[in-house]
């Protein structure tokens, strides 16, 4: 605790911030604010990647930080905003079931993933290994968000923020993946977003709503 370098403290701070934003997204009713929160999470991720790049002197991490910044703070939120404008769901408010209950489940998930990550973190040799638990917790929280939401766009944002958690685990705990893998994942996320955007329009065309409970009616023979 006494000899932790400043950059590791900053990473820890950003990790805590990431976790906090995951909880904020879990509790947020409005779609537009949800996108802003997602962009903020991307920004925290880009900052932490940049700090790891500076501290370890790995030039390719700068690229990956830049990529995160462009993709997750600018491009994806822009696409989402445009989608929302086109679909005309700007003021969509979701009737969430019992936010305090969801929060308590979230806390249980965080405890679970901290316990799960603890033995793994002991094996790692990096200074910031403790953040594996936080990364895993934010992945779990994004899962929870995808489960509790019924509308299509929040579910997609949950999916994207899950990718944030994975990426954070990769950069902070192991100082980055090979460049090819990172580029591949970035491209995957972008393409997934575009395809899901098309899906939104198809779903709305069919059901006049983005509520996914209508999809249950798709069974044959009815």
């Amino acid at each position, binding site marked *: 605790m006494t000899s932790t370098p400043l950059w590791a403290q900053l990473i820890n*701070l950003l*990790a*805590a911030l990431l976790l906090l934003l995951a909880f904020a997204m879990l509790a947020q009713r409005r779609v537009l604010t949800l996108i802003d929160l997602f962009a903020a999470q991307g920004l925290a991720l880009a900052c932490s990647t940049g700090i790891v790049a500076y501290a370890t002197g790995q030039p390719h991490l700068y690229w990956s930080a830049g990529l995160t910044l462009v993709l997750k703070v600018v491009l994806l939120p822009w696409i989402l905003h445009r989608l929302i404008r086109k679909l005309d769901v700007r003021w969509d408010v979701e009737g969430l079931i019992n936010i*305090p209950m969801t929060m308590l489940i979230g806390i249980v998930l965080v*405890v679970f993933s901290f316990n799960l990550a603890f033995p793994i973190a002991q094996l790692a040799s990096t200074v910031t290994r403790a953040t594996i*638990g936080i990364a895993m917790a934010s992945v779990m929280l994004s899962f929870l968000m995808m489960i509790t939401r019924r509308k299509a766009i929040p579910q997609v944002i949950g999916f994207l923020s899950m990718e944030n958690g994975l990426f954070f685990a990769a950069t902070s705990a192991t100082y980055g993946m090979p460049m090819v893998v990172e580029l591949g994942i970035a491209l995957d996320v972008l393409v997934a977003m575009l395809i899901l955007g098309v899906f939104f329009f198809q779903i709305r065309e069919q059901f006049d709503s983005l509520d996914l409970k209508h999809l249950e009616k798709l069974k044959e023979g009815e």
Partner: protein
Amino acid sequence: MTLTGFFLQLLQLSIALLLAPVLVGWVNMCRAWLQNKSAPSLLLPYRMIRKLFHKDAVVAKNASPIFRLTPYVVFGAMALAAAIVPSLATDLPFARAADAIALVGVFALARVFIALAAMDIGTAFGSLGARREMFVGFLAEPALLMVLFTASLISGSTSLPTIVETLAHREIAIYPSLAFAGVAFTIVSLAENARIPVDNPSTHLELTMIHEAMILEYSARHLALIEWASALKLFNYSCIGLALFVPFGIAERGADWQAIVAATPVLVAKLAAGGFALAVIETLSAKMRIFRAPEFLGTAFLLAVLGMLVNQLLGG
């Protein structure tokens, strides 16, 4: 307890008793400034208390002894808490008498008595206010305990003086857990002191009131004691917050009366900054519906628990 210790404790307590109404006056003053009104005098709460002490008390016919006893119990509990909280010095006789958990118990005692007294007369407003107060209280207390536990985990003790001494002397570092706990503590103190997002301290005429609804039946010296006790409660919460999160400038072990006098301007400056922040929060936020309070206080609990977990994982 030595004679010097007793004297120092008395000095600290009287400074606390004197400062508390000024703090309330200062918050009201800042709020008036921020809302573009001409501000009331800083000493208005004093005049209010003096005026109330000079009046004749009226007590309802069907009031039980609890109703008469409550102002003294509440004031006594808050004065005791003011003696326990390390606001000016850490090494005072009373500070060692109770730890953080017992302190929460002292606050709970005052709450129970004021709620009982509110229900005692049997007016609709009284029981409504009492029910709401207990509702807010049972949500705020666990969050407050969690905040105190986070600080205890860092310093390894639940005794407030030890926490302050440890936190004041640690190496300068970023503690995400303390940041979480700080935000959680702010939310809890807003709720506990009947401040704006949860309750409105400046109204008697709303169906939404909580604290004011409970003390509607009190008059004269009883009301004066209750008002003074609420001012002390705000002072105590501010001092706990300052002790946990800005623990600098507090006189430490082996302090004499000069050190306590020297610590007073620092405390006044910190309280002034804190009071201004409180006024800003109150001006910027709107009162929320009472049934939104669980979400608000649930957030505080969540933040405090997260602070504890993050502290466990990241080691501080």
